[in-house]
């Protein structure tokens, strides 16, 4: 198939960027979207032009490196699919495909399509963990976790940290990422002791970098793991609850 790739080119963080159009001839429908970029880059380099910078690694939809805004959608038109798992056969109806980097204050552009998503790490550092220093753990089966609870935690934990939720959100909010990480830990019995301090620190860190949630639901639609906005409700609820909790009494509630 033939198509035009309209790609955002930007030499560096502060450089002025613009779209370039690259005609691609005779590409196979079996190609993945990133392989299309591999081919483009080979062509560019052979012509003596600098290749397009873009993040990628596993190409299996699990590492969360790949990140492209494809025709106005984070990770492109296929639901529940990261850019690296998108294949051209799903895009045969298009003549021109427009690709730009994810845009958010918390995701400064590094070059072309590559952005810096360290802000997501900052949110985890702020409280996205269970304090369990190595060696102190008791036997794994002493902690019972109902299957449904464990499954729900896993639904949240499936987040790959790609940042599509931020990219897709009309407000540039990081709520779905934060909620997924938060809910994963706070749905499990192991996560209870730190639950209410965790929610406050994660939310406050999130708000340094990202916008606020107005419940559009674009995040859920863009998420390659289809993580539910229900987790956002959970985060919001616990944040409010946390205001009224006296941590000194947490030992009493069981």
């Amino acid at each position, binding site marked *: 198939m033939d198509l035009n790739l309209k790609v955002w080119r930007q030499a560096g963080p502060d450089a002025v960027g613009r779209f370039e159009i690259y005609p691609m001839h005779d590409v196979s429908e079996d190609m993945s979207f990133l392989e299309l970029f591999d081919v483009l880059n080979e062509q560019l380099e052979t012509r003596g032009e600098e290749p397009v910078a873009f993040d990628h690694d596993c190409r299996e939809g699990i590492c969360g490196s790949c990140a492209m805004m494809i025709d106005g959608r984070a990770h492109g038109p296929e639901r529940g699919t990261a850019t690296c798992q998108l294949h051209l056969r799903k895009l045969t109806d298009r003549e021109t495909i427009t690709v730009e980097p994810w845009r958010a204050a918390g995701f400064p552009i590094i070059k072309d399509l590559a952005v810096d998503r360290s802000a997501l790490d900052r949110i985890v550092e702020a409280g996205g963990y269970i304090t369990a220093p190595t060696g102190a753990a008791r036997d794994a089966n002493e902690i019972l976790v109902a299957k449904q609870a464990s499954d729900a935690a896993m639904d949240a934990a499936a987040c790959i940290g790609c940042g599509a939720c931020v990219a897709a959100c009309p407000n540039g909010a990081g709520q779905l990422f934060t909620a997924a990480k938060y809910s994963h830990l706070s749905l499990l019995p192991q996560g209870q002791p730190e639950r209410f301090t965790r929610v406050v620190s994660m939310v406050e860190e999130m708000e340094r970098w990202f916008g606020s*949630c107005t419940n559009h639901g*674009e995040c859920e639609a863009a998420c390659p793991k289809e993580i539910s906005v229900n987790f956002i409700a959970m985060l919001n609820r616990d944040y409010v609850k946390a205001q009224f909790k006296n941590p000194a009494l947490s030992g009493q509630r069981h």
Partner: protein
Amino acid sequence: MKTLQDLTKTSDDEAVGSTRRPTNPIRRFWSSAVGKKWVMAVSGLALLGFVLVHMVGNLKIFLGAVHLDEYAEWLHTLGEPALPRTVVLWGMRLGLIAAFGLHIVAAAQLTRMNHKARPVRYQSRRDYVAANFASRTMRWTGVIIALFLLFHLADLSWGTTNPDFVRGNTYDNVIASFERVPVAILYILANIALAIHIFHGSWSMFQSLGWNNPRWNPIRRYFAVTFAAVIAVGNISMPLLVVTGVVGK
């Protein structure tokens, strides 16, 4: 060497939201976007209640002047004899003013925060999947409601924009106002905006309050649609039937 920390901005003035949090618990809660959204939801809920009750009361217009005027008078005497006349009414008014105030201030501050969160917009057209017209126009429908509210007060509470206004004659005032075609259209449009606002707001509020249980979640959407539809039909029926002459003096 320039580290990644240099590349990502860390300075407080550049951050999207608050970085230094106040210690006073109320101010700290208010400093957070999640906190503000909670305030919006609670105030929105209060406003929803008001809108509904307000509508139900006003629908007495179809029962005739006596009923409507009686109802209006009842509002003023609510709480008597335990409390002096209009105390309860003023209490409700103050509550409403506070709800509107908090709702609007929070909306304004969150909107600013959201603009800061994406200083450079997407350069190609977005293709929205889940966000709908209602969710994306909240701030505009909100502003329309606020402006309309001022007009509505001037029209039917203070009478400044209503030449035939006679304090206490609620029924006549309403009919006189709605009989003017432009005013009727204005009421209809404003209530369409209100319904759109409610369509998203009365779903969104569940999320903001964290009222979430997968078993009941589907009902949230029905609730929102029904609520918006009821308000739209009820509120629009009044100016519509008056301006078309079905209901009148």
